């Protein structure tokens, strides 16, 4: 059975105000669907209970793979030459660390980018029509699911928390 779901975007000028509002909305039993902002904010992250990102694991894996790949490449290519010069060993283990180091950085960065793409889920063009443009400029937008509550009552609640609630911010979705 489908029921109508009222979703409203409340815009806040300040992140501390938005963080307080997030706590109040949660206490009132409504669900925060999303929060958007022009800059990251520790206060909002704290209010949302956001945990540390796991992107570092991708970076670490990339770095480890990169080091061994670079070092192996240098060893492999030198072994393919097999040319002894001035009686020195064919494999120069110490200078090969330079190649290993550069590959470590390269693959760590590639791992980092891969992690960001996978975790942020970019590209994400499908979200674009639903965001308030002010959220990339100077407002923090809190998108709240009010379920089947009265729309006017929900708007009043948000306004009392210090939010601007533009008319166009209402969305009705089916759940």
């Amino acid at each position, binding site marked *: 059975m489908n029921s109508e779901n009222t979703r409203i975007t409340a815009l806040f000028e300040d992140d501390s105000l938005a963080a307080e509002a997030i706590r109040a909305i949660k206490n009132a039993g409504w669900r925060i669907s999303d*929060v958007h902002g*022009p*800059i990251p904010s520790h206060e909002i992250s704290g209010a949302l209970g956001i945990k540390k990102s796991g992107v570092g694991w991708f970076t670490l894996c990339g770095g480890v793979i990169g080091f061994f790949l670079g070092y192996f490449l240098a060893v492999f290519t030198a072994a393919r030459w097999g040319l002894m010069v001035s009686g020195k060993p064919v494999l120069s283990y110490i*200078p090969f660390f*330079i190649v290993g180091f550069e590959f470590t950085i390269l693959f760590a960065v590639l791992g980092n980018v891969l992690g960001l793409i996978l975790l942020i889920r970019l*590209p994400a063009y499908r979200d*674009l029509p639903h965001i308030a443009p002010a959220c990339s400029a100077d407002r923090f937008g809190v998108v709240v699911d009010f379920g089947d509550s009265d729309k006017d009552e929900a708007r009043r609640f948000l306004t009392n928390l210090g939010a601007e609630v533009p008319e166009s911010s209402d969305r009705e979705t089916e759940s």
Partner: protein
Amino acid sequence: MEKLSFKEIDNTVAATLDPPGRFYWTVIGLLFCGILVGAFCWAWQIMVGIGAGGQNSPVNWGTYLINFVFWVGIAHSGTLISAILYLLRAEWRNPIARAAETMTVFAVCTAGLFPFIHLGRVWMVYYMLPIPNDRTLWPNFQSPLMFDVVAIGTYLIVSVLFWYTGMLPDLAAIRDRASGTRKKVFSVLSLGWTGRFEQWRHYSRGYLLFAALATPLVISVHSVVSWDFALGVIPGWHTTIFAPYFVAGAIHSGLAMVLTLMIPMRRIFGAQRIITMHVLESVAKTIVFTGLIVGFAYGTEYFIAWYSRNSVEMEVFTFRSAGDFTLSYWIMVVCNSMVPLLFFFRRIRTSIVWLFGISILVNIGMWFERFVIIISSVAHDFLPNAWGQYAPTAIEYGIMLGSFSLFFFLFFLFVKHLPAISMTEMKELQHQGMTHE
């Protein structure tokens, strides 16, 4: 720092993207002509052979290598500002970080052209890639030139990714202000960034890791470039001081280029409230620091040559300061290690004219530093009967003109079509200022 609202920051940066006037297109046109001159000279060299340049025994590395090292050096301050100063939480970096990063990307691209140019037979470039060539031989990673391929390649890829990742939130901000075709273009470029806190959570962490990885990379890259010389058994090159000496010199030249670019940019775009005098002054103070390191390195080279009692080493350094390249040597010393000391005076480091003038002199001095290092040692090495001379030919000057034109052409295109000041970092800076009060 002056208080700016988020809206004022957006408006200032968005104004830089307004359709440019006739002056802008005239400059772009002139720079494009410079690129054509460079391209013609390179094409001529490919047609008639590498002898079209003045490089010949004993000076086989001429302006192509000088310009290569010069542009890699210019690239370094971008990463210093965007990564090292980010980790050190130096707030003055925020207004110029984007432009400096952009400078890095275009400088590495320009630098990367010179090994191709110097190859002569440019179609053989794949010999440098880690694949077997037509005689099933692999490149040999015992050579510092191969270290260089790996280091510069890594630096280019990392710089581009770092630059683009940092720009995502700003591209989204421009998208949300734009309409029509511009909106469509910026929608694609911003990859659907919406500023969700779930996105910020990963982004902030990822950006920090980027900075942490770019920091050792930037130090390693110019160290590797220095080993192109230091691993060669040539008097004046074969020293352990080269890596830190090159890194400091690179940052020195890069910071000077930051001033050279930022001073006109802030005036043309009316961005004086964002790129404030405090920012320029901080760059000037850092130039004093790097200038002192570079001066110390010049002195150390002489001291070690004297202290070693090595006659060849002493002869090379005497030749540098009192031989055929005396003028180049003293331009280097005066412009790099003496002129920047004027920034000790507050009146000078807060004067736009002095800042701009000294930045140009440091750029010139740093170009001559590479000239002196690369030319004088091989022109005057162990055996007097092998000594020689070197002077660039018109073809080399043409290619050099082309490289400078290409760099400024790309940079000028960038500042008018993409956000040249990081709106997000400026907002974060303002936000921190507000909350710390």
